[in-house]
């Protein structure tokens, strides 16, 4: 599935990574920029969506601006032998937006399970994190929550043109 991009796919990524043109016929405008037909632009994008190269076409909201003023990265130290089962269960909680197994970085960082929790207030996030703690039970040896206090950059992918 890790197909490298052909030259035209790559040019399509470069032309759209900053955003889709805000004109009535955006795919036609891209076609003009790339020197190909609009049908080719649309069929390539449809194919990229189908194979997962494009996760989706759509908007990315600023979490703070749409009411999620408390954004906590909860991190947990659980035994490696149990992490996959626990990770699946934590990821299945409806308030967790991302859940990953990541490496520890000892001695500074003993945590191997990461779960992002968003809410309208700090106390709401703390309540949700308490639900994760209850689910993990004694498998959790230590945990922390790192609340985001500022978005410093959020541009997304930028590959060279």
């Amino acid at each position, binding site marked *: 599935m*890790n197909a490298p991009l052909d030259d035209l796919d790559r040019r399509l990524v470069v032309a759209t990574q900053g955003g889709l043109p805000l004109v009535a016929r955006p*795919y036609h405008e891209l076609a003009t920029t790339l020197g190909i037909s609009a049908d080719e632009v649309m069929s390539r994008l449809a194919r990229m969506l189908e194979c997962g190269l494009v996760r*989706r076409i759509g908007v990315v909201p600023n979490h703070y601006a749409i009411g999620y003023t408390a954004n906590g990265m909860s991190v947990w130290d659980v035994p490696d032998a149990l992490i996959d089962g626990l990770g*699946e269960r934590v990821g299945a909680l409806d308030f967790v937006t991302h859940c990953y197994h990541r490496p520890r970085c000892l001695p500074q960082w003993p945590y191997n399970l990461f779960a992002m929790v968003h809410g309208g207030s700090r106390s709401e996030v703390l309540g949700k994190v308490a639900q994760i703690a209850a689910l993990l039970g004694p498998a959790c040896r230590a945990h922390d*929550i790192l609340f985001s206090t500022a978005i410093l950059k959020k541009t997304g992918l930028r590959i060279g043109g």
Partner: protein
Amino acid sequence: MREALIDATDRALIDRLQDGFPICERPYAAAAHALGISEDDLLARLRRLLEVRVLTRFGPLFQIERMGGSFVLAALAVPECDWQRQVEIVNSFPEVAHNYRRQSERDCPFNMWFVLATETTAGIASAVRRIETACGLPVFVFPKIREYFVDMKLSVRT
């Protein structure tokens, strides 16, 4: 302040367009029709929401891993007295796709968390080295070992 930024139509637009956007000749007209507004109104609203930063992006979201590239989470412990300078240095790297200030509940010193996105896996190591040199601080990397769940969609709550 937040309440003044978006109205009910904007909320519906943000919720609906997190799900997807049509691929057809007049996609804005098609999406606008589903929202019960005109094509021009949708375009004007998208421009405004991007301008006031309620939306950070509108367009295709690429899965760089499927293209042979990498996304990697990384952290720095930045001294408070040097914060602004280090933010500017880190943000100046095009490989830095997102960057957040975070505060630990338990005195963890990692206070700057960013995501590196590069076109090749080797690009990550190179970016890490260049950031370390530019900042004069060690970069701690947390590549994902396994993904259990990802859904970036959040419904509007304001």
